[in-house]
């Protein structure tokens, strides 16, 4: 019996959008095309003819987005919208000679995408940050699991933010 569709689970960090793009392209080259993305990180594929699809991920805040105008622009530029997940928008286009394969065509606007992500993570980090400040009060027992968890999460956020800042730095040019 031939498989028509499948679901894969894979974890990517927020700064690994290009790694996601590369993986999805490989999948399409093998004849598996993305149909949907969900939480937790599950990817749904349908089988078909191998195609060289280039995938691109954008990051936008829902509330600030004029969805219709946004999608129309991408559609006009021949990008097919596959779906969205937590602010990440998934697009693809067949890789052909002469086709523009980037959704961000200059470094400045590409940096803007990572800055949006940075702000979002920073905001998420605030409650943790305040929790940690409160941890230094005498009544707390330092060996409490909750405190350890909070600190670990905080360190994780700091790590993510640093990774994204490094990514932004890579994109900056003369």
């Amino acid at each position, binding site marked *: 019996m031939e498989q028509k569709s499948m679901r894969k689970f894979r974890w990517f960090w927020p700064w690994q959008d290009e790694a996601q793009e590369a993986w999805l392209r490989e999948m399409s080259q093998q004849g598996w095309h993305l149909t949907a993305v969900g939480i937790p990180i599950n990817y749904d594929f349908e089988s078909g003819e191998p195609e060289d699809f280039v995938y*691109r991920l*954008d990051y936008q805040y829902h509330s*600030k987005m004029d969805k219709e*105008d*946004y999608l*129309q*622009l*991408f559609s*006009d*530029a021949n*990008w097919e919208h596959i779906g969205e997940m937590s602010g990440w928008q998934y697009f693809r286009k067949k890789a052909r000679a002469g086709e*523009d394969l*980037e*959704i*961000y*065509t*200059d470094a*400045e*606007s*590409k940096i*803007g*995408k990572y800055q949006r992500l940075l702000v979002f993570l920073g905001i998420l980090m605030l409650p943790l940050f305040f929790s940690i400040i409160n941890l230094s009060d005498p009544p707390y027992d330092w060996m409490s699991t909750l405190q350890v968890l909070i600190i670990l999460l905080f360190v994780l956020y700091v790590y993510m933010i640093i990774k994204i800042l490094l990514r932004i730095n890579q994109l900056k040019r003369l």
Partner: protein
Amino acid sequence: MATDKDPNKYLPLTEATYYIMLSLIEPLHGYGVMQKVEEISQGTVSVGPGTLYGAFSTLEKEKLILKIKEEARRKCYTLTPKGKQVLLSQIERLEIMTGNGKSVKESLV
């Protein structure tokens, strides 16, 4: 004050923003802007949808462009008077730059 400092706050524009604004001297929708920029820049600059969407948002927020009508389900933008001022200032700045470039061009070949 002799000079209005406002336009200069936005300079220098990125190449993409410069060409987008040039394309919006007459009302145009996003699709048209993408095509026009490619054409008038002689292929040296292309504007992707992510870049264009960001530029439209920022330019509109800064009141350098505004939406004026809808054509074939696509919103059209055009420059505001303030936008025209900024563009003019950028063009004058570029004229100085290219003037300098031209005068040394031969010595670089």
